[in-house]
Every structure is written in C-alpha cells, then in structure tokens.
C-alpha cells in the first residue's frame, strides 16, 4: 500500500495529510514535489493537500493546476488511481478540470475555521464505503473560498448521478450550492472536499471520522 502527497509551494497541510494517511492506513507515504515529472511507482492514493498553493495568486489553485506534477496526476486518475483533494486540493482539482464547478469566496466574506457536521450523501463510493450505515460525520473546515458553485444543470447532474458525497448538515458555512461539501467525478475515483479528514483522524483531535475516508480509499485500491 502506497500513497503520495503532492507538495506545492504554499501547501500547509502536506505533513498533516502524510501523518493522517500513514496512521489511518499504515500505508507508506511519499512526498512528491510539484515540479516532479513522475509519481512513485505503484501508488494507490494521491492526496492534494490544503493550504495556499502559490499564495492563492490569480485564483485559488489556478497556478498549482498547471504544475508539471498535475499532468502525472491527471494520467494516474485516468488509469483509475484514487485521488483526493482536500480544501485547496479541491480547488486545484476544479481548476485542473478534473472535477466540475469552482469554489468562490465565502458568502459572508469570512475565513471560517471550525468543527462541522456533515451528511454522507453517498456511502457507495470508494472513499466513503466505510461510512455505510452512518449518516453523520464530524470534521473540521478551514477556508475563505469554499463556496462551491456550478450551474444548475451541472448541480442536477451531480445529484442525479450520486456524485455529491458530503453535504453540510445543520448550517451551510460558506454559501455552497445545495450545501455541497464534497463531490466525486463521474468515474468515482477523484474526490474533492472542503472539510479536512486530515485534521480529524484520531479521537484526540476531536473526531476520528476522517480516518475512515483514507481507510476506504486504501481498501478500494
């Protein structure tokens, strides 16, 4: 079992993700620099971490999406490898065209950092199978631009195809369309989410629910 965490200049959850994946699953974790032109051989899971890649210049994730390593990430995803983008990683996946939609400024213009309850709206993806039978999970969010946007037709399609995986439960913290907190691509092997499973993978952190996500992803490899 092997995972890779991509490190962009300005990523700040890369170490958190490495520790979270390693402790949750026991997988070996390689750090991959954004300028690298190859991913480690036989990687089962690729994580795009949170942070402020390239200082959020131009648009969150815009520059990172054009990094050399992203061409390899796209290729790996096309080959069926699981890819999860968390927070800034979600923004990068949208900017790279690997997921539909975009993330706008939070509706109330505030950076929000708090623990939040989520609905698991689809527990039949390779990332969420471990949540089967559970409706609510708890993770933390920390974002200023987490307001998911897509046109109505795209939103209808995402809902119709079961691609909406997580929704905010009691409150919508950032104005996201239809309370969406996380989506998968049509094939189901690319997940983008604003909440941080990497900050919620042990009970000591207030919730261990994030560990289930990494375990599910690894079990599906």
């Amino acid at each position, binding site marked *: 079992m092997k995972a890779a965490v991509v490190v962009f200049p300005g990523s700040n959850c890369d170490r958190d993700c490495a520790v979270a994946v390693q402790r949750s699953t026991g997988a070996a974790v390689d750090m991959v620099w954004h300028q690298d032109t190859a991913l480690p051989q036989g990687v089962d899971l690729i994580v795009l971490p949170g942070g402020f890649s390239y200082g959020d210049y*131009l*648009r969150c994730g*815009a520059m990172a999406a*054009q990094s050399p390593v992203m061409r390899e990430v796209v290729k790996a995803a096309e080959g069926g490898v699981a890819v999860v983008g968390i927070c800034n990683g979600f923004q990068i996946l*949208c*900017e790279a065209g690997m997921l*539909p*939609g*975009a993330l*706008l*400024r*939070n*509706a*109330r*213009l505030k950076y929000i950092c708090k623990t939040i309850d989520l609905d698991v709206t689809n527990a039949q993806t390779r990332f969420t199978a471990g949540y089967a039978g559970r409706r609510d999970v708890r993770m933390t969010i920390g974002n200023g631009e987490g307001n998911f*946007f*897509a*046109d109505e037709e795209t939103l209808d399609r995402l809902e119709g195809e079961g691609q909406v995986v997580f929704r905010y439960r009691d409150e919508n913290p950032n*104005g996201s369309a239809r309370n969406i907190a996380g989506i998968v691509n049509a094939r189901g092997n690319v997940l983008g989410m604003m909440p941080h499973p990497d900050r919620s993978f042990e009970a000591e952190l207030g919730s261990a629910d994030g560990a289930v996500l990494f375990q599910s992803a690894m079990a599906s490899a």
Partner: protein
Amino acid sequence: MKAKVHVYLKPGVLDVQGKAIEGALHGLGWGDVANVRVGKTIEFEAPGSDRAKLEADARAMAEKLLANTVIESYRVEVA
C-alpha cells in the same frame, strides 16, 4: 504591443466583494449605486507581436489560465 485582459465574475455569479463595497458606498451616501462588480486586470507587453497575433494569444491565455470560464468572463484589449 501591450495587452490587457479584464476578468470579472459572470453576471449570474454572486460577487460578494462587490456586494460589500456596494453596501459601503450606500453608507457613504451614494444610495443609487447598484450592481458593483470587482474584477481584475492582467496586463503584459509582447514587443515582437502584432495586433492579430497578440489578440489571439491573449484570448488563449485567458481560456487556459487567466480566467476560469466556469465562473468568470473576460475581455481582451490590445494597443
């Protein structure tokens, strides 16, 4: 030659910065101000280029990087 690419959120996309600025302008007494939008301009020089090529290049740059056409529209100005 010099190019400017103006990027704005599309009309249907809520511009929360614009809304905040609109509120502040109303507070300052400009009560009839409406529909404030915040955009950005990216400008650059391309000394070797001619007008037609620079216009086409700037458009391609906007499509690929400078604008996210899911949420933004852009306008190219060449002089």
